[in-house]
């Protein structure tokens, strides 16, 4: 994996160093590293000639631009009304049981982080979750166990 500074300069080469390139650059870091460390944000600030506080202020606005260490696979369970009505809690309990972590936590091997998120837009196929960018819908405990087992083998 590229060192943060290498990654950042290559992203800046790709998207540009103007302010409007900031989100694509932050998203590019997330894709590689899953989160934005303090050092990364400072490095981006240098690369783009912006105050580091601006990078931090912008990044922390967006819920998918994580600034705490995340696992390799970030699981986001939809908690908005329909998913909540259709058994979201059972899905969470199943995952907590399988991975031995609670919501907001990361497994010790840094493979999984479990989070809740707002409406994913799959209310007609609730409950739904994202694992990184992949969508899984019409979940039940059994289905979730199957999905997670394939990730555990990865």
């Amino acid at each position, binding site marked *: 994996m590229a060192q943060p500074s290498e990654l950042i300069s290559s992203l800046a080469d790709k998207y540009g160093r103007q302010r*409007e390139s900031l989100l694509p650059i932050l998203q590019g870091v997330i894709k590689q590293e899953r989160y934005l460390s303090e050092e990364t944000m400072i490095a981006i600030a240098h690369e783009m000639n912006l105050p580091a506080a601006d990078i931090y202020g912008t990044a922390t*606005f967006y819920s998918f631009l994580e600034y705490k260490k995340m696992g390799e696979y970030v699981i986001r369970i939809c908690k908005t*009304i*329909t998913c909540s009505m259709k058994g979201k809690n059972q899905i969470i309990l199943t995952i907590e049981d399988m991975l031995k972590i609670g919501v907001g936590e990361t497994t010790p091997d840094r493979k999984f982080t479990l989070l809740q998120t*707002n409406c994913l*837009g799959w*209310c007609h196929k609730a409950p739904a979750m994202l694992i990184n*960018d992949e969508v899984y819908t019409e979940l039940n405990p059994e289905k979730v166990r199957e999905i997670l087992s394939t990730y555990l083998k990865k």
Partner: protein
Amino acid sequence: MTREYNLKRADFIFRNENDWEHILSRTLKKDRRELINELISSELKGRGGAGFPTGLKWKLTSESEAPQKYVICNADEGEPGTFKDREILMKVPFKVLTAMAICAYITGANNGFIYLRGEYKFLQHDLQKAIDEFIYYCNDINFKFSIDIFMGSGAYICGEETALMESMEGFRGEPRNKPPFPTGQGYNRMPTVINNVETLAHTYTIFKHGAKKFYDLGVQFSRGTKLFSVSGDTPKPGIYELELGMSLSDFVNDFGDGDTKAVQVGGASGFLVPRKKFSETNIGYKGKLTGISLPTGGSMMLFNSTRSMYNVLDNYLEFFREESCGQCTPCRVGCQQLHMGIKAVKQGQKPASYLEKLLKLTETMQYTAKCGLGQSVANSFSSIVENFREEMIY
């Protein structure tokens, strides 16, 4: 499908016509003013929820003088209970791209963007392929236009048009003061047409079949069809294209599970309608002569008698509390206070009369919040608290 009750089903949006090349090249030969008049006479209103007349938006942008103009497709579909835009982009992306190009032709824009919510990142690859094919054709017919996808990163507020532009410019997604409106100063402070995905798809129908075909559907002030995202306690959740103007009781007869207690129209920022008001409520834009008219981005969430309306409101308020951008005090603090307030009443820490104070607070938010998010929290809050007061207390 059979025509049941008063619901009029339609099939324009998802009909796969595979004639976009023809429609595009044909439309680009027409007079711009004629096209705008066609769009205005269709009376199409924005399908994202706010309902601004689309033709007028395009006209205003076309009249703005500037060195650069933009067309933005708002695919930041984040309203709870709404999932139609994703389906459009998956199934008929070329209708949307064609509509963007026609809009660019009419308004004088050269660049287009699709702001796609982060939750739909899995769509990006296929959508980009469609864009590549589309732009290749545009070059072929000598029409200069570009379309880029801009990915969101998980912020409901970026569906608000000026917040979306702030986000595209690399800032926190905080809504701007209006005016100026995007038609005069939008993305990069240049005149910008920003339309919801579905709105653009409807313009395709209008440019293909003519305004009259569209105008003849629906009812006065609410012309045409609309996609409805149906979820909750229903035997047939999904996406349905229906003519506007239907009564909610007809809708519930068709989509309910026989035990429908209430319907949330328009998502968390919309209104909850209790059973006793189904028959007097119509789905459409304001201005209808009789009954209550509820505009909507198309989210229809059904709740049956097993559901606690307190839990529903609690869920919405948690949502708003997290998604408020925090920029203006009425919304930032208001959402927190409302959320804590209903909990305190439910747990007996505050008297039932405290609900009246909270209702007053939502009124204040309606008048003083900077954007639609803070202003519309009052909709669901007051419609739930006023209609299901006992459930809030006991």
